[in-house]
């Protein structure tokens, strides 16, 4: 008797695992895409970087 006989149930379980895997991968790709769009839409971002950067200060009225 072949120990590795492939029963139909194994195929069904594989399809389930594959489906969940693809859905999760798609979700990760979607969140990544959303992040890229959201961040690039804000425009250039600068923060304090240990040196004085005059362009970050509010212009004097």
């Amino acid at each position: 008797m072949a120990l590795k006989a492939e029963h139909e149930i194994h195929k069904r379980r594989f399809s389930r695992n594959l489906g969940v895997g693809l859905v999760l991968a798609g979700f990760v790709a979607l969140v990544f895409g959303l992040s890229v769009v959201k961040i690039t839409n804000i425009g250039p971002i600068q923060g304090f970087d240990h040196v004085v950067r005059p362009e970050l200060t509010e212009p004097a009225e």
Partner: protein
Amino acid sequence: MTDIHATAFEKEAGFGDYFALLKPRVMSLVVFTALVGLLVAPVPVHPVVTLSSILFIAVGAGASGALNMWWDADIDAVMKRTAKRPVPSGKVTADEALAIGVALSGLSVVMLALATNFLAAGLLAFTIFFYVVIYSMWLKRWTPQNIVIGGAAGAFPPMIGWAVATGGISVESVLMFALIFMWTPPHFWALALFMRADYDTAGVPMLTVTHGRRVTRNHVLVYTAFLVPVALGLAFTSIGGPVYLAVALVMNALFLKGARDIWRRDETQAEADGYRTEKRVFRLSLYYLFLHFGALLADAALRSFGLGAW
């Protein structure tokens, strides 16, 4: 040996059974109307944001479908139309349906809030709550007006789409809501007229069961008459246009005539020709909704080329 094990696993679910929990056919209508609501709005939305928000709205709708199947498993098992759903057929347990429904509801609302704005996410959350608690748990088994008020749940998607784009609510989005809301009762009652045995055996108080088929026929005509001004009114808002007006005139005339045909018949005539008119009007009602929203999309496309605006 293998045979003994095989019977134990016979009913184990595949991926498709879990997908079926999300009511893919209802979902396709939600995707279409939400997408139209989003695209006809005067504010452009980035394609990636469009794709993700429509997806999250669809997942939210699917989650409410799963919760509905968890709650209604007893009714579904009795009705022929729904007996093959994953829970009554024994492929997925009711607990699993509950878990998937709750998890996907939370996920879809949170993700829609992050991807777009809190109004759209709030509307999605309210839609899920309305469909599961107000409709499934409360009204469906309690009043013959279940279809009328429950139809609100199906009417929210274009409003959510509009809120994704504009962050607000306006006459246009309320009228799109009203169009689906008023369309639902005649659509479902036409179905209930020719799917007669099902609701009777399940004990769901459909109008056909509680007040009889004559009253249902009257209701179809009256609700269709109230639907017509809503559908035509939408033509004269900022999202209406010549394509929509033409489609609305033709489809409303046909639908009103169909409703009148249903109203003029009695059961003997209907049984004699196997509910031909009722089935025809039911099919017509599907085209009715699809064409109205398709026409809104067509007018939005024309406007983007500088054509056809009022």
